[in-house]
């Protein structure tokens, strides 16, 4: 048995095709495989490992991080993209492969994902200490990391899709980690279903592109090549692009499918940092950028729509960040808003795409920092509500300083990472003459700075308003904070024109593009940041109740109710389908369809009784006399009504024979 079936796998292993691999890039698949091994090992042996299994996750992801830096080095030293693939299976003409495509973007993403994942793995040792499902948590964390890394290295859309959905599943189980609480499992379901609503169009987009290759491959490079060569009709490309974008709207929480992300904060905070801020939610952006040739060669309306959805999300979610009391929800809306920035920039051509990736890169570090910082605060205060915090800068100095660095980066204050990437975004829009998007994102930047100031002031300044005695978190938690804060200070310079902007030598679409520093844009974006911070300081420099934001009246109500989108979805879609439509369908099944079946059975029985009675009276009656028939017929009737199946069968077969004879004569 094995001898016959395994060769398929063994053969695949030998077919490794190292066309242009060089340096450590050929081991990119190992970076993804290691956490998968870790997940399996922790699942089966985690409870028997001292410490509960975290060591496997930390070791494998740590190794992956080092390896990723080595892979990035290949591009730092001017190396080119490499690829390799093994055959997976063939169905009809469609050849499915497992492969990796490693360019500068892949390398950067590998570093980002492993770095943040490593921080979260370490941080969770302290944060999840004593949790009933500590080991299981690490299984999911490692599995997630493997799935995300698979998305990053995938050279074809099916492989990407698998990582994509497995990530979604990990997100589901981690949001619902504390599933004893109904609200947590509901949030998990909401996240899974909402993103799947985007995933179905994504899948169909993959179909469109596979069909465009003549049902031969889903290889991204081949598809890009085909599309860029103008061999596919623009309309088809547009259809493929817009369907693919559906997946990004779901995964990257863009309007109108963003509603799952704030609720996803029901999960443990390290999960929010890793999955719902730094990596998985960025996968939508990554996918769009990875398949960018498809978007670029589609009808122009596609990218215009992408830009419109991005900017609506960036601005709309930013406003929602103003009215939240839950610190994680502030960060969640901020994440949606920042993802909106990245999506918006996809509308600004290859330069915009690259700028979006730079923002994705810096955002991953400072947003992971902010989430882990908020986790540290929550760990200390046992609440998510900023109204029950305050004054924590004295009791939690490390958390305070690192959180402040992250906040200033988010606000876009120079020279922190967020400033440089936001500046690049605006420059790209300026170069592309996308003025509407330019001004709207600049406005959104001021909003960002405003709610950031509010968040920091309410959490760390004034007097402590909660209960108990908050204290600084253990080293396993503050260590990652310091590391991420360091990254937040440094990584911005990688995209700064003054340092030669090496990031853009690694991440580019076709040719590296020269990065220019536009002083007036930098001034303008700094001014927007400072204006927002100053506004926030003016309103929130001391604790006031009720929150001054409530004075906005109707606007505040609109924001507090999240534009009523959740209500519309719940009352307009979920309830009618789940309770109404399903009940109607069940009724149609029980009453209509089954009614026909039971009715037919009744008629058949009634007929057979009639036939039998006729039989008794006419045939038997003639033979046995009328007197005996009554009793006999009664017995037969009981026989039929007892549901004797053989008798029905005999009847039916008699019918068949008759029909067959008739049939063969026509």
């Amino acid at each position: 048995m094995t001898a016959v079936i395994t060769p398929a796998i063994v053969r695949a292993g030998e077919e490794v095709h190292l066309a242009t691999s060089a340096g450590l890039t050929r081991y990119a698949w190992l970076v993804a495989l290691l956490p998968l091994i870790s997940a399996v090992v922790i699942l089966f042996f985690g409870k028997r490992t001292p410490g509960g299994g975290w060591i496997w996750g930390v070791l494998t992801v740590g190794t992956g991080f080092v390896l990723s830096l080595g892979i990035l080095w290949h591009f730092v030293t001017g190396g080119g993209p490499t690829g390799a693939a093994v055959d997976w299976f063939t169905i009809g003409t469609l050849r499915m492969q497992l492969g990796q495509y490693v360019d500068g973007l892949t390398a950067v993403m590998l570093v980002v994902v492993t770095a943040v994942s490593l921080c979260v793995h370490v941080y969770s040792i302290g944060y999840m200490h004593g949790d009933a499902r500590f080991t299981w948590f690490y299984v999911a964390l490692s599995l997630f990391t493997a799935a995300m890394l698979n998305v990053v290295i995938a050279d074809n859309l099916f492989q990407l899709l698998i990582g994509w959905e497995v990530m979604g599943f990990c997100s589901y189980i981690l949001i619902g980690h504390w599933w004893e609480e109904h609200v947590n499992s509901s949030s998990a379901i909401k996240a899974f279903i909402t993103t799947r609503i985007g995933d179905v169009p994504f899948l169909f987009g993959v179909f469109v592109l596979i069909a465009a290759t003549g049902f031969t491959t889903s290889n991204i490079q081949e598809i890009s090549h085909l599309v860029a060569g103008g061999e596919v009709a623009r309309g088809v490309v547009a259809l493929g692009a817009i369907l693919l974008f559906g997946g990004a709207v779901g995964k990257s929480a863009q309007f109108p499918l963003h509603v799952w992300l704030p609720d996803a904060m029901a999960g443990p905070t390290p999960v929010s940092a890793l999955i719902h801020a730094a990596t998985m939610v960025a996968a939508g952006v990554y996918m769009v950028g990875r398949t960018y040739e498809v978007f670029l060669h589609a009808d122009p309306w596609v990218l215009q729509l992408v830009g419109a959805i991005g900017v609506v999300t960036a601005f709309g979610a930013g406003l929602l960040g103003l009215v939240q009391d839950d610190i994680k929800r502030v960060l969640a809306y901020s994440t949606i808003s920042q993802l909106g920035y990245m999506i918006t920039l996809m509308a600004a051509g290859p330069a915009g795409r690259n700028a979006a990736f730079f923002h994705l890169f810096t955002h991953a570090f400072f947003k992971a920092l902010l989430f882990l910082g908020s986790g540290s605060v929550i760990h200390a205060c046992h609440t998510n509500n900023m109204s029950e915090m305050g004054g924590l800068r004295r009791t939690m100095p490390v958390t305070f300083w690192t959180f402040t660095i992250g906040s200033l980066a988010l606000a876009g204050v120079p020279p922190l990472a967020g400033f440089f990437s936001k500046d690049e975004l605006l420059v790209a829009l300026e170069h592309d003459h996308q003025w509407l998007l330019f001004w709207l994102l600049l406005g959104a930047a001021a909003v960002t700075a405003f709610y950031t100031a509010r968040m920091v002031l309410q959490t760390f300044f004034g007097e402590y308003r909660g209960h108990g005695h908050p204290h600084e978190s253990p080293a396993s938690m503050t260590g990652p904070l310091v590391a991420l804060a360091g990254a937040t200070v440094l990584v911005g310079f990688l995209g700064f024109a003054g340092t030669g902007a090496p990031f853009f030598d690694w991440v580019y679409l076709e040719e590296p593009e020269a990065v220019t520093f536009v002083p007036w844009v930098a001034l303008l974006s700094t001014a927007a940041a400072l204006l927002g911070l100053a506004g926030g300081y003016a309103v929130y420099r001391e604790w006031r109740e009720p929150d001054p934001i409530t004075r906005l009246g109707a606007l505040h109500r609109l924001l507090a109710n999240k534009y009523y989108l959740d209500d519309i979805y719940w009352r307009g879609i979920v309830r009618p389908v789940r309770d109404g439509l399903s009940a109607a369908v069940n009724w149609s099944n029980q009453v209509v369809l089954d009614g026909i079946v039971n009715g037919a059975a009744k008629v058949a029985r009634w007929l057979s009784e009639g036939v039998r009675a006729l039989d008794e009276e006419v045939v038997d009656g003639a033979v046995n006399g009328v007197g005996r028939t009554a009793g006999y017929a009664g017995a037969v009737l009981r026989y039929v009504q007892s549901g004797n199946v053989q008798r029905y069968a005999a009847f039916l077969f008699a019918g068949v024979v008759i029909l067959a004879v008739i049939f063969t004569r026509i």
Partner: protein
Amino acid sequence: MSTWERSAITIATLLPLVGAGVIALVPRDRDRLVRGLGIVFTGAAMVVALALAAGFDYGAGGGLQFELNTRWIPAIGARYHVGIDGISLPLWVLTFVLSFLCAVYTWRYVPSPGKTKAFLALTLLLETGMAGTFIAFDLVLFFIFWELVLVPMYFLIGIWGSANREYAAIKFFLYTLFGSVFMLLGFLAMYFRSTPHTFDILQLQAYGAGGGFTRTFQLIVFGAVALGFAVKVPMWPFHTWLPDAHTEAPTIGSVLLAGIMLKMGTYGFVRIALPILPEGAKAYAPWIGGLAAIAIVYAALACLAQKDLKRLIAFSSVGHMGFVMLGIATLTDVGINAAIFGMVAHGIITGMLFFCVGSVYDRYHTRMIAELGGGLMQKLPYLGGVFTFVAIASLGLPGLAGFWGEVMALLSAYRPAEVLADQLPLFRAFMVAGGIGTILTAGYFLWMIQRVNMGTVPERWRESPFPDVVAVEWVSWVPLLVSIVALGVFPRLLIGITDGPVGALMGLFGG
């Protein structure tokens, strides 16, 4: 050809029948011996089947292997023609594996009212009938095996079922019989129309491909045969016997019903209806696709309304078989491969789901979602965890077996066969319906998990001393759980077997 090659199929297929006879001779009070014999005979048959699978030439493409074609009933031209190819091999082997696992499961659980002897003898009889259907290349032989399945299943439901068992058993029997009458009619029509008269599937196939059957004939006969298969699958709207049968059947009855029996219908389409009557297939394909699309959405919506766990899973089967039928309706190699993958995956996953529900019922003595009240993963972490995992597999998570059948069926609907080119928009609409179905499917399974597996244990169960998954359950489940992962990660294990013969078969449709 060696004796082994000529007789292997027959040995494996008839071993359970022999086992049923042996068990019938064992005294009634030797309960353990009876159960042991059940395991021995299903196990022996499985070993023969696996040995055959090991000797199977996977590179051969379309031809029959282990073929035996000999005189049987000369008076009506029926021959004992059996053989196996890449299309039937997976289903045939699955029959033996699932039956064996069911026999293992029975080591611990014999449903009320006991009568282990009869229970196992009938199960073995059922196994022979199911296995025989997948190897028969003579229509009379096929029909006999097909009908042979009905009787034991009728008694399994009617005797060992739950409260409403008699209604369910009779409904199952008569409905299927009703369908098979038309199927038999179609078989007879093919026999009388072919020259020379033959029941041989391969000869009929060659005859049909040579244009022997007129279009009108094909339209009528395809309709008749398809009705018989459609009831068995079951396709919407002929599915209403299934939820009742499943709900009332004992656990292993449900496992075998969902795991194997439903596939007899879809297999019939692939093996008989499509190749022999290609013109008919072409004409009916849009209708079949339409009913399949309806089934997917309809079943998913019905699932949302179910209060009984077993009934929910029964309805989910209707939806999953909808994906299988959608793949078949496209008349493409991708679609048929997807269909076979879907059949096997559904057999493993849904069989496993029924095992889980059976074990839940065995402990709680209720299957009502509201009465279970949640907290299964808290009360019984392993059972709850396995159940959750299998439900996730059933909703089609990539990396697990349920994914490939569904996604490839949808892919094939994006571009159906050349002969259906003018129906392209229709099939794309089916694809979209299928996509919506996957969202609803995720919805009802996750909702089920939330209500049954998550949450806290209700007061009434808190003190109940239920055992978690026991050794016998692990033994019968682990092979299925491993298969779910293995087929998800290495779909070539299955597609590698089916792709060749399917390609040969589908040459008929230019797809």
